[in-house]
């Protein structure tokens, strides 16, 4: 039924053009997430997260470890099932049940660790799983030709018939992106793409990202690098401990504001200096005890830069800084997980070398590691076995703790630390995150350490357990233990520490003592470094 009047034609097409443009504007938004929530046993991973992505936008998703950045992506791509919330994609509700389904819908994540096959050629990787076929065989000619075309768009001068593994990570990352785009992706998700790239490689990636953006591609850029976010992103959404903090145009959020959002303190309130009362209550006589740990120029090539550090008995050394500032690296260096290759380490005044955690344990050091699941708990073993492990190792092979002794020690720490478990024989994997954390702390307290390093002991655990652990830190320091307390939460650092060390770029950038310690000063110390870097 074509209209007979030619004028009608013109009018109709005009209307069509305009409506389609209107339609385009209204649907500039490609993805809209509202009220997304997800819990794991004992942990609220996401609660009420909103996220809106438009075409031609680079939207940064930021947050410290455990903030829920990757959980959002995993829910979006169907790795996890969401508990609540809605995802509107391309104007229709989306409910991916598997990553494959998400891929088919046009949502392609490119992960930090390139998950392609290194021993296949570049071309094969680009077409992995959907190789062009001809008479039941792979059509190599077409595949290589097409792949070359795709790769050329990325300004890459590489031989697509060579193995992917022969190329540096940056190139591999680019190939992964090319592959994702080739899958007709509407949303490109880059999860910490720059963490293994150097400056030039990062710049190269950014150039491509800008080009894609100009072509109208929607990009989600997950990163913990503040400077990079400012360089490339248009919009930033901040998550903290699984909650949605907010979304801002990058130009309207300065670095100090951003860092305050990341770490959890409103920038407006920063001017109000709130002296930490509990620390004053503890008195200032602490920190004058015997020096337990001292380093002189201790460092590791490619890791912690030479650093001087002193922790005395009864002192709580708070360690603040953003992700990747060297906090965990320092803990690993002190505990012998990474070997130092320069400088001197003294334990109670005696020069020593700690080559492995075993040696550290013998010297009376203890470390509750950052990654509870992979480095802390031994999931299948019971609470009792998890608690006595370090003590048994300290005692050695020939002094076995009897079953009765084990039970007694386990029961003691279950009581002292208020660990909620049906019995000491419960497998630790069945406990909540907070209780698992307490078991790990109990494991180390059982060895009666002189120096306890707690790396993010309160991350991802409920508020009650958090407070208990903070109280415990203060209690331990009263008992003349030297404690190093690493945390992303400035509030608890300020509350528990007698001295605060701010780290940036693998070295100590600031040391705050006495009345200088409050969230405000710590935050400024962190932000200062980042603005300096400009």
């Amino acid at each position: 039924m074509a209209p007979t009047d030619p004028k009608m034609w013109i009018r109709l097409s005009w209307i069509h053009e305009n409506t389609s443009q209107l339609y385009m504007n209204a649907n500039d938004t490609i993805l809209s997430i509202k009220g997304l929530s997800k819990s794991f046993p004992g942990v609220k991973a996401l609660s009420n997260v909103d996220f809106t992505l438009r075409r031609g936008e680079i939207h940064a998703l930021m947050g410290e470890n455990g903030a829920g950045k990757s959980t959002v992506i995993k829910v979006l791509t169907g790795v996890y099932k969401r508990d609540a919330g809605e995802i509107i994609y391309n104007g229709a509700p989306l409910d991916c049940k598997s990553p494959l389904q998400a891929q088919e819908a046009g949502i392609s994540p490119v992960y930090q660790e390139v998950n392609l096959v290194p021993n296949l050629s570049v071309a094969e990787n680009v077409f992995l799983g959907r190789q062009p076929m001809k008479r039941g065989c792979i059509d190599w000619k077409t595949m290589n030709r097409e792949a070359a075309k795709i790769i050329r768009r990325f300004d890459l001068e590489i031989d697509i018939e060579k193995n992917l593994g022969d190329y540096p990570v940056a190139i591999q990352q680019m190939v992964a992106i090319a592959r994702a785009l080739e899958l007709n992706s509407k949303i490109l998700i880059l999860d910490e793409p720059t963490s293994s790239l150097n400056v030039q490689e990062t710049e190269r990636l950014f150039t491509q990202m800008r080009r894609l953006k100009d072509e109208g591609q929607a990009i989600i850029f997950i990163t913990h690098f503040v400077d990079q976010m400012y360089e490339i992103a248009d919009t930033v959404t901040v998550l903290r401990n699984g909650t949605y903090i907010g979304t801002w145009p990058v130009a309207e959020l300065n670095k100090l504001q951003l860092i305050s959002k990341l770490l959890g303190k409103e920038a407006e309130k920063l001017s109000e200096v709130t002296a930490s009362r509990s620390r004053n209550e503890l008195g200032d006589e602490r920190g004058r005890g015997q020096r337990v740990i001292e380093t002189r120029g201790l460092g590791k090539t490619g890791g912690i830069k030479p650093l001087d550090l002193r922790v005395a008995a009864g002192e709580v050394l708070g360690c603040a800084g953003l992700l990747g500032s060297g906090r965990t690296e320092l803990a690993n260096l002190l505990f012998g997980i990474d070997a130092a290759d320069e400088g001197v380490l003294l334990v109670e005044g005696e020069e020593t070398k700690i080559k492995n955690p075993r040696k550290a344990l013998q010297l009376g050091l203890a470390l509750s590691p950052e990654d509870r699941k992979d480095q802390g708990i031994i999931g299948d073993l019971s609470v009792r076995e998890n608690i006595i492990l370090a003590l048994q190792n300290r005692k050695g092979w020939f002094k076995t703790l009897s079953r009765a002794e084990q039970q007694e020690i386990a029961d003691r720490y279950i009581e002292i630390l208020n660990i909620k478990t049906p019995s000491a024989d419960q497998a630790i994997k069945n406990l909540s995150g907070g209780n698992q954390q307490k078991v790990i702390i109990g494991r180390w307290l059982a060895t009666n350490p002189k120096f306890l390093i707690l790396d993010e002991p309160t991350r991802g655990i409920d508020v009650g357990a958090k407070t208990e652990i903070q109280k415990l830190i203060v209690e331990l320091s009263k008992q003349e233990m030297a404690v190093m307390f690493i945390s992303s939460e400035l509030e608890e650092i300020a509350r528990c520490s007698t001295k605060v060390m701010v780290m940036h770029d693998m070295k100590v950038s600031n040391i705050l003592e006495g009345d200088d310690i409050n969230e405000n000063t710590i935050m400024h110390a962190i932000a200062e470094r980042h603005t300096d870097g400009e």
Partner: protein
Amino acid sequence: MNKQLQQGGDFSARLAAGIKSIQWPLIALGMILLFNLIFTEGFFEISIQNGRLVGSLMDLLKRAAPRLIVALGMTLVIATGGIDISVGSIAAIAGALAVLVIRGGDITYLATQDTSTVSILLVILVALSAAAVCGLFNGLLVSVVKIQPIVATLILMVTGRGMAMLFTGGYVLNYDHPGYKSLGVGDWLGLPIPIYIAIFILIVLAVLTNRTPLGLLIQSTGGNETASRYSGTNTTLVRILVYVIAGVCSGVAGIIFTADVQSADAAFIGLWIELEAILAVVIGGTSMAGGRYSLAGTVVGALIIQTLITTLLTRAVPVQFTLIFQAAVVVVVLMLQSPRVKEMTFKRRARKEASTHA
């Protein structure tokens, strides 16, 4: 008094928990035995001949003994998340060396052998030391050189049998040594000696893993190596130790094998035993992923395999079918233990209950 009572209760509770953890293999074993009780005439018949107990059951236990010993060693290796496929070759090396020592180094084929007077302790010492060195070699490859266990032990699986053949000059070497022979064919109080040896090894390993930290350290290393190392465990040493233990266990089996047939044929001593051992461990409920293990489970697993073989033999099932039967039973037992199958049956049960309630 109260405390004693409590400990007694504690012990029986632990025993009950222990039995529960191996309930499926136990049920499987019970079913095979029940089948024999009903259908296989004379399976449980035991008669006394010349002061020794004779019957299918005795034969079964005697045959199971060396296989069980290897499987026990294998259990600890698997508990650390490793595997040892060289156990058969280590058995061959130990058996061949033992016979070589008995013969005073003489490898002349079919030479008539006088009764050897070499000390049996020396023979055992040489054989087991060699087995321990083999285990040490495996352990170092796995824990220090960090080669994947299956590849690392593949090296000795292949070269070990070759070495054993060098020791015997490629011949089947016979010998005459009443003391050594009795380790395979002898009996005491009516029971075959290999059964005593297996029980002895079981007790030694049970004590070693329960009365020393070894059991805890093995399980923590297999459960989460990083966390275990961060807690001060010498995971390298733990790994080396389990391979040495597995090596010595294989050596013991090699001695029993060569004592049983009164000769050493390096090409066949302990051939394919690694597969039986791994199967026994897995049937016994120890996960190949490492972590929790059960020596008792392995005992039941080894008995299941041997009972099955003996059943098929006594029922005169054609040889070409025995392996298929064996495979079928293994699949059933493994499925009973699989978390996924359990989950599915639970779900169905829950659904049934829900529907009846509704």
